[in-house]
């Protein structure tokens, strides 16, 4: 389920079945070269698409929160607190597995300070996310992630 009227009403009715929250961490910036900006925006598009696919696979047990967006320029220490707050709120609502997804390596270093689990993924090397080749690469990565999530469930 995700953050829209229809899904949220289903969520409210079936809360006890939804115990896994996923949140994409998405950096944003407008300063940088054309190349840097394009890369950053592509990553954001890719992660959003990725999360949507994962949600679709397990929509009965997963809640996809709106993207956690932050300025690339902000020091990540400030954001850590905000992330933990998001996680806390979800925990208070009965979520048992909280997975925050990102392509941004910065978080890897801060992982210890984060309460939710951090899933850092290398950026898939695809030129255009809309072509067939890219779809295959994405498909296989999505499968790995969904398997990872079921592994969490088996704990």
């Amino acid at each position: 389920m995700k953050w829209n009227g229809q899904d949220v009403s289903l969520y409210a009715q079936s809360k006890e079945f939804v115990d896994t929250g996923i949140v994409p961490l998405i950096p944003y910036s407008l300063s940088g070269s054309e190349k840097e900006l394009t890369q950053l925006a592509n990553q954001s598009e890719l992660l959003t698409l990725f999360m949507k696919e994962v949600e679709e696979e397990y929509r009965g047990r997963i809640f996809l929160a709106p993207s956690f967006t932050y300025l690339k320029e902000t020091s990540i220490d400030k954001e850590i607190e905000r992330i933990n707050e998001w996680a806390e709120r979800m925990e208070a609502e009965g979520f048992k597995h909280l997975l925050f997804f990102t392509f941004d390596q910065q978080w890897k270093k801060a992982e210890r300070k984060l309460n939710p689990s951090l899933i850092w993924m290398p950026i898939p090397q695809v030129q255009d996310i809309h072509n067939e080749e890219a779809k295959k690469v994405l498909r296989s990565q999505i499968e790995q992630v969904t398997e990872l999530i079921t592994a969490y469930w088996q704990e």
Partner: protein
Amino acid sequence: MSDKKQPVSRRQFLNYTLTGVGGFMAAAMLSPMVRMAVDPVLQPKEGGEFHATGTEVKNITEEPTRVDFSYEQQDAWYVSEVSKTAWVYKNESGDVIAFSPICKHLGCIVKWEGGQGNENQYYCPCHGGLYEKNGENVPGTPPLAPLDQYKVKIQDGMLYLGEVIPNKVV
């Protein structure tokens, strides 16, 4: 400021602009309706649409196999590509059956013989829902209805899938 210096008075100006905006809005509202009436491409399609799956019927066995297919769909605002999945097999009389993989409990994707020890059944990893090969939900697991089916069409030996309908096999 005197009226002489103002070739267009305030009232006139308001009149012009409001008629303009109103007219524009009316046109905007009207045009889709007109287009619907005249343009056959924009006419809502009836449910009888089938989509190619790229799967040859002769390769379908009695073992449910995952078939992925996609097609373009026109929604209110734009055309988008939708991806769909089906579990497809041949029953004893050789008819092709295609199930929607969407769990009838809360909508996760079920897998044929997924999980551990679920032989000959579809398994939903979300809350352990189980279905028999014919789509029938196993009592005591969360789903309360059998898996939905796709309408099936076979043309030149290829499999085409249409709209999703309630299970007719069970």
